């Protein structure tokens, strides 16, 4: 059973189609990445999943059925724009938001204290939220998202304002969730984190999903049929090479159709005047793919 199943969902605001027939699903134990430029329809789709907005058409199934009030207790949500009561004490804020997810007050207090200790914020439990740094607030907000141990965690820019140490901390928490068979849907513009963490991705552009699949599949679709080489000597006049591009000491050899990277490697290795420090099949970064998709490319 999919944790989340979105089928042909559409949503308009004042005549503008914000989401145009979006479909995807998220499986248990999956870290699912959602990418897209600003205004592409990601947040609107998330709000429809959470029942904050209602779709104009299409269907959204959460945990095997339509969304209802009881299922809201099984979802954790970290919005892009942080939402905490600035004048409440950290612990009180966490407890209150946990009670709205069906956790009994005393239990919520225990869990909140344990979480704060784990993320090294035990000492700020009695401080007001407004007294915390942005990074600390972010960790508190993340805590409110997972305190009730949701089956689905939906997070929008979870690493914003976090330093590398805290980023690692939050990543570990997300990996724990995945390991426990729960699902994470993560929206972020930090492509390297998507590359590092996500099993599958969808990419939104202008209200549509323009990419959907595993990272490996997506990259292959955008792979340029080229190899990257670093070393000394000449890389010209190799058989099966269509063109040669050089940038920052790295040479990209664009292969002719039917030429394999292996044959190019063998040809290079056989040259006595050329030494190879690095040889890699060219795979575009997610960052490159993102820019290309936004500029209208769909891949192969």
């Amino acid at each position: 059973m999919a944790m989340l199943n979105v089928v042909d969902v559409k949503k308009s605001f004042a005549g503008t189609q914000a989401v145009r027939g979006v479909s995807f699903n998220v499986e248990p134990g999956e870290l699912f990445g959602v990418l897209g430029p600003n205004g592409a329809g990601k947040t609107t789709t998330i709000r429809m999943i959470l029942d904050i907005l209602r779709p104009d058409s299409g269907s959204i199934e959460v945990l095997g059925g339509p969304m209802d009030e009881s299922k809201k207790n099984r979802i954790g949500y970290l919005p892009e724009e942080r939402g905490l009561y600035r004048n409440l004490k950290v612990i009180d804020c966490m407890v209150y938001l946990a009670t709205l997810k069906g956790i009994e007050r005393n239990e919520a207090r225990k869990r909140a204290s344990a979480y704060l200790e784990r993320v090294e914020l035990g000492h700020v439990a009695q401080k007001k939220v407004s007294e915390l740094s942005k990074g600390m607030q972010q960790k508190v907000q993340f805590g409110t998202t997972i305190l009730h141990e949701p089956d689905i965690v939906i997070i929008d820019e979870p690493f914003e304002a976090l330093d590398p140490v805290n980023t690692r901390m939050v990543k570990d928490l997300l990996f724990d969730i995945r390991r426990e068979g729960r699902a994470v849907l993560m929206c972020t513009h930090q492509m390297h984190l998507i590359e590092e963490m996500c099993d599958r991705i969808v990419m939104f552009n202008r209200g549509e999903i323009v990419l959907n699949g595993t990272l490996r599949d997506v990259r292959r679709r955008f792979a340029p049929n080229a190899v990257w080489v670093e070393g000394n000597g000449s890389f010209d006049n190799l058989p099966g090479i269509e063109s040669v591009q050089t940038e920052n000491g790295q040479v990209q050899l664009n292969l002719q159709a039917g030429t394999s990277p292996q044959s190019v490697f063998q040809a290079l290795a056989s040259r006595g005047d050329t030494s190879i420090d690095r040889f890699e099949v060219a795979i575009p970064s997610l960052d490159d793919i993102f820019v290309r998709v936004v500029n209208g490319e769909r891949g192969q």
Partner: protein
Amino acid sequence: MANKMLSVAQNEFIKHIRKPTFWLAVFGMPLLIAVVGFFSQSNNNNRSGFAVPGLGDPAKINEDILSGELKIGFVDESGVIKGIPSSFDPQTASLYVQYPDVAQGLAAMEKTDIPALYVIPSDYLATGKVQRYSNQVNPFGDSLQSSLVELLLSTSLYPDNGSSYAFLLQQPTTQLKVEGPDGPINKATNEGERMQSAFILGMGLALLLYISIFSSANLLLQSLIEEKENRVIEVMLSSLSPRSLLQGKILGLGLLGLVQVAIWIAMGALITGQGAALGSMMANVEISLGAWLLALMSFVLGYAMYASLMAGIGAVANTMRESSQLTVIVGLPIIIPLMFISVIIEQPNGGLTTGLSLFPLTAPVVLTIRSVLTSVPLWQVGLSVGLMILTVIGLQFVTARMFRASTLLRGSKASFGAMWQALRQPE
């Protein structure tokens, strides 16, 4: 869902009751009134000839006497009064009109020869009670007439010093306890007292509603706008429905408003010492349990209606400034009954009164006043309460949808189009 709603209510209540600003308002307001009252009283005390309790302003008495408006009709069944005391000057003596029995006195009252009839019963010396009959409504009391009756009684009982101000200061009203008759004698029974009580109850309810609503409404608006601004609202709506969120807020802040009002009433009664007097006055009039229950129900429904309206304002407004104008407009219907109070009291079953008691936004106050004054037809009570309940449901239905639509708008006003679209969607 009820638990979540209660969680919201509890949070709102605790969050605000812990704020120093709440307590500042709770104690600051009565303090301000007390200070103003103190200076006002000091000012009055400095005015000569205005110091005798129960007698009012001598200048005003003179005005009324000279204009011939003041007549004191009385029937003495006790034999205490042996004619108008000779110590009274002729002008004062001419104010009193004695009737041989109640029937003739009431007849004179019906002919409007006298505004009220005082009956000194045969057991007056044992009870100290005097019965008062009147067809006229004077919501602010008939203390002047009663004081003149007191003067007559006091002078008759203590001919040597009963009429002196010093004596009245020592024994101001202890010998006179005005009350309505035990049973109806005719149409002119204790209507005046009932009307007075109805007025006070209605005014009290209206003021209670006003204070509760506007003290809570500001907090409700602040709370909603703050949550919209800091985006907590999005987290909240991912946890519970807009309706539960609103109901929780209305409940929590409504209770807070009631706490505030209760403290004010208690402080007011304590400071002014009027609590007992008010209780005594209300006790003089028999108000049925049903009328009290109806008043309570009207208050609860009235609060729920107006709080829902305020929440609606919170949904569409982005700032307190934006909301303030709308708040005043929404609060206007509570004032309408006060504008027509004399019509409502004089014609409790008239067309206007009936209409106002059926119109949900004016019903809480008008229905309460009517239920004290007259026997309101059951179907009208049912219809009025039903309409109020439907209005509460309808307002929450609309407000919750508006809330959903406008929650995600930040820094821009909710358009009619977006609101209309939201209203058409399922909750």
